[in-house]
Structure formats: structure tokens, C-alpha cells
């Protein structure tokens, strides 16, 4: 009896801690959401309360402007293209690494895996010079192709380890039935690997959506800006108009949060498996 009460008391305190941490996350976001419905006068006089009166203009003006929808479209286009190309290229490589024996396999694989050590930050300057020489500045390919290249290590590692779990008998049977290596890859391996493909797709969508440094230097033309670049520029432009910047940030958050709500399982699973395998 007393142990049950102990557990109850302990759980009460655990809830207190969890709620405190939760508030630490929710309050800044709520400050943003509500702040967007206030005007700047209200922000200083009435920081915590509900807006009075509610001022929806901050949101409606942004929602009616191409300065919001254009970056949204660009971010979506770039994220989707990156994922499609990355998953295709990486799964082809992972298939070869997982199921073929050839000279230099381990060396090449180690080279790819070592790519985890080369992040954008280190390479951004020479990458910029290179993209300029290739005339890829102000072109979506200038962001997509490097994103694919830098996404390869993690994706190849996760996919290879998944492909290895598919029994060799499946492949032998397919080949006896007259399947070419490509036929096996395309018609049998990829469909079987759907959960792993979902995981790596979700990870790379998030990475592309949140990428800032590369689009920042590649796109000088505002009509190609992605959402993070546009958010930063908007903040610079309306530095004195806190309420309006809050409204823009909140709207820019929504797609990521909606995506999270849908794909939480793949994201969490992917990060856990990626970290242990990388």
C-alpha cells in the first residue's frame, strides 16, 4: 500500500518536471503565435495575455503576399527533388555495396562513410567557388545536387545495412526466374525496403527543408529564396515590427510541424537507427 502511494507521489513530481519542460517549449512558441495577433503596442503593454483586440492583419497580409508563398514553393520543390534523386542514387550504391563482391569495395565504402565528417559548413566556400565555375548559382540544381552529395553518406549507410538483412535466397530465386540485377533491384529489393526508404526520405526532407547556408550563398536572386533564407531576410527587413516578424515565423513553422505530426515515427526511428549505425 505504501509503495503504491510512494509511486503516486513520485509520479506527481515526474509530471511536475515534465510539465515544466513542456512549458519551456510551448511558451516561446505560444508567445510567437499570440504575438502575431497583437500590434506592437500590445506586445509591450500586454505581453502574456490574449490579444485585445485580436489583430489578424499580420497574418492575413503575409498569407496574401508572394513573399511567403514563393519561398514555400521553392522549399517544397527543392526538398522533393533532393529526396527523389538522393534516394535513387543512394539506394543504387547501397545495393552494390550490400550484395556484390568487387575489388575496392571496402575502400570505397569507407570513403563514403567518412563523408559524414564533411559537413556543408566546412565545404561551403570552395563549394560556392565550384558552383560559380559550373554556372549553377541562382539555379535550384546548385542547391539540390550538393544536398544529394552531402546526404549520400548517411543514406547509403542506413540503406546498405537494411539491404543486408534481406536473405540471399530471395535474390537467387529471382535470378533463377530470369531476373536481371536491375530487375531484382527495381521490382523486388526497393519494394521490400519501403520502411527504410521512408526513413531516409523523411530525414532528408527535414535536412533539405531546414538547410540555410547553401541556399543563402547560392541564391542571390530573391525569387529563388527558400523559407529559411526568406525568414532571415524578412527579419532584417522588418526588424522594428516585432509582431509582423512573429507572424511570419509562426507561418513558416507550420509546414515543418505538420510534417512532424505525420512522420514522427519515421523521424524518431530513423535518427535512432542512423546514430547507432553511423
Amino acid at each position, binding site marked *: 500500500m505504501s509503495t503504491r502511494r510512494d509511486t503516486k507521489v513520485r509520479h506527481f513530481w*515526474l509530471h511536475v518536471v515534465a510539465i515544466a519542460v513542456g512549458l519551456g*517549449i510551448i511558451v516561446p512558441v505560444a508567445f510567437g503565435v499570440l504575438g502575431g495577433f497583437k500590434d506592437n503596442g500590445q506586445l509591450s503593454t500586454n505581453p502574456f495575455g490574449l490579444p485585445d483586440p485580436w489583430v489578424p492583419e499580420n497574418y492575413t497580409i503575409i498569407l496574401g503576399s508572394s513573399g511567403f508563398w514563393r519561398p514555400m514553393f521553392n522549399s517544397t520543390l527543392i526538398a522533393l527533388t533532393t529526396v527523389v534523386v538522393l534516394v535513387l542514387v*543512394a539506394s543504387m550504391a547501397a545495393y552494390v555495396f550490400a550484395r556484390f563482391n568487387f575489388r575496392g569495395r571496402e575502400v570505397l565504402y569507407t570513403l563514403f562513410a567518412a563523408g559524414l565528417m564533411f559537413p556543408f559548413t566546412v565545404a561551403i*566556400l570552395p563549394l560556392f567557388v565550384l558552383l560559380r565555375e559550373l554556372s549553377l548559382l541562382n539555379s535550384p540544381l546548385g542547391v539540390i545536387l550538393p544536398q544529394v552529395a552531402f546526404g549520400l553518406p548517411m543514406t547509403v549507410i542506413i540503406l546498405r545495412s537494411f539491404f543486408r538483412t534481406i536473405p540471399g535466397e530471395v535474390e537467387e530465386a529471382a535470378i533463377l526466374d530470369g531476373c536481371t540485377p536491375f530487375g531484382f533491384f527495381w521490382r523486388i529489393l526497393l519494394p521490400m525496403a519501403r520502411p527504410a526508404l521512408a526513413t531516409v526520405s523523411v530525414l532528408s526532407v527535414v535536412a533539405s527543408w531546414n538547410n540555410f547556408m547553401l541556399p543563402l550563398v547560392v541564391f542571390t536572386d530573391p525569387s529563388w529564396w527558400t523559407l529559411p533564407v526568406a525568414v532571415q531576410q524578412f527579419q532584417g527587413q522588418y526588424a522594428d515590427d516585432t509582431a509582423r516578424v512573429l507572424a511570419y515565423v509562426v507561418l513558416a513553422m507550420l509546414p515543418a510541424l505538420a510534417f512532424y505530426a505525420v512522420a514522427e515515427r519515421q523521424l524518431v526511428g530513423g535518427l535512432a537507427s542512423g546514430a547507432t549505425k553511423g
Partner: protein
Amino acid sequence: MEGSLRRRRRLDKLTVALFLAPALLLFVVLVVGPIVLAMYTSLFKWNGFGGLPQDFVGLDNFRRLFEDEVFIGDLERGLILVLLSVFVQLPVALGLALLLNQPLRGRAFYRLVFFAPYVLSEVITAVLFTMVFSPNQGLANQVMSAIGLENLQQEWLANTSTVLYALFFVISWKYFGLHMILYLAGRQGIPKELTEAALTDGAGTWQVFRHVTLPLLGPTIRISVFLSIIGAIQLFDMVWVLTGGGPIHSSETMAVTMFQYGFRRSEVGYASAISVAMFLISLVFALLYQRFVMRRDIEGAITTMREKR
């Protein structure tokens, strides 16, 4: 039969070549290429324009690096951020992971909330917190005055003595959920029998944690420390948007310094030297860490790989 085997071999070789080619091409041109290019241009004084650099200066850029107070400061600030992460952020994340491992009502919801900031971009997080920390209308100061701590109000991001801690707070706000998820996955991988056996043998909660849970979480903790340090070495987006590295360089990181020289002041040669330094620091750290800290974990991984083969 022999002919078909040979044909099969040739087909295999062709498959390997064709399937590897796109990945290899992209990787060599866009990942390896830039690193090599940075090493080359770091040996020149170069403004970044007009074909290849001409003005060869040897290792001068690197000598300048070690006399540059800002760069030395970057290293110190990086070290502070790493220490804060490892000794504050990660223990908190571990504590919360163990909390969420309890059979608590609503824990799925807590987990959803704790992890949510991870999906927001660093830019969005940083812009939001610029507002939170803004001196007049910001949330932080208004909370302070609401609970009667007016004298602790600050221009958080404009004060050289608070800015690094404000930055650390925002980093932790965004990333503790990631580490928590890793620990939670690691904790759930520990068989129940082990902790139960320890409890039946009379171990207290603390002893179970200290002598069973913590050692078995070792590999996860080592990975999470690794990710945290590599992240700190490359930190850019958050700082760039939150403070731009200021005031007077007091929140600047290596990446910000590199960006300033490379993209704002057209000292591409010197900025390349900073890139190379960042690369070498990450590489040396990664090799040493894997050699001395993660050795046992990797040995385990390699033996399981051999079994599968």
C-alpha cells in the same frame, strides 16, 4: 554452363559500375572536390575572382590564423559550448529520457512536445528567440519583471557576458529532444530482466542507475557526445541569425569567422584556411574519439557485421 557464368560475371561487373557511377560522381565532385580545393586555395592570397588563384603565400594564412585573436576566441568559445553541452544539456536530456521511460500517463504526448523543436530549422528557432530575448518587448525580460526580478533584466544578446549563455540556451532548446530520443532508444534496448534482477538483489534506484543503466547506455552516450561536439564545431545558422557573431565577436564561431572573411570581405584564401582548420579539427577529433573512446563499441559493431556476412 561456363559461358553463362562468364556472362553473369560480366553482367555483375557492369551492374557494379553503372550503379555506383552516379553516387561516386556526385560525391567526388561535390564533397571531396571542395575539400581538396579548399586545401589548395588556403595556400594563396586570393579574393575569390578570376580563375585560379595566383599569389602563392605558402602557409602564411595558417600562421595568421594562430595569431588571429578572433580565431583563438572561436576555439575558446567552441570549447565552452562543448563543455556546457556535455555537462548540462546532455545530462538533462538523459534525465528526461529516463523520466519518459517510466510508465507515466501522457508520456507519448510529452515526448512529442520535447522532440518538436528538433524539426524547426535553426533559422526559425533563432528568429523566434531573437524576439524572446529582445530587450523591450521580449518574453525573457517580461517574465523577469512579472516574477519580480527586474534587476536581472538584460539585453541578453547585446551583452558580451550573457550572449554565449543565451546562445547555449537556444541550442539546448532545439537539440535536447534529439539526444533525449537517442537515450530513450538506448534505454529501451536494455532488457528488463537486468534492472529487475538488480532490484531483487536489493539494489536501490540510484545503484541500478549507476551500475546497470548507465554502463549499458555507454555506447549511446558516446555517440550523443560525439554528435554534440561535431555539431558545436560546425555551428553556423543559429549564431548567424541570432547575433551575427557579435557583440564584438563574443558569440562568434569558426564557421561565422570563415563566412565573414569568405563571403563578406573577399579574403577567400584566408577563409579557406579557416575551412581547412575546421576540417582538420573535426577529422582529428573524430579519429581520436573513435580510436580511444568508441573503440569497444566499434569492435562490437565489426564483429556483428562479420557474423552477418
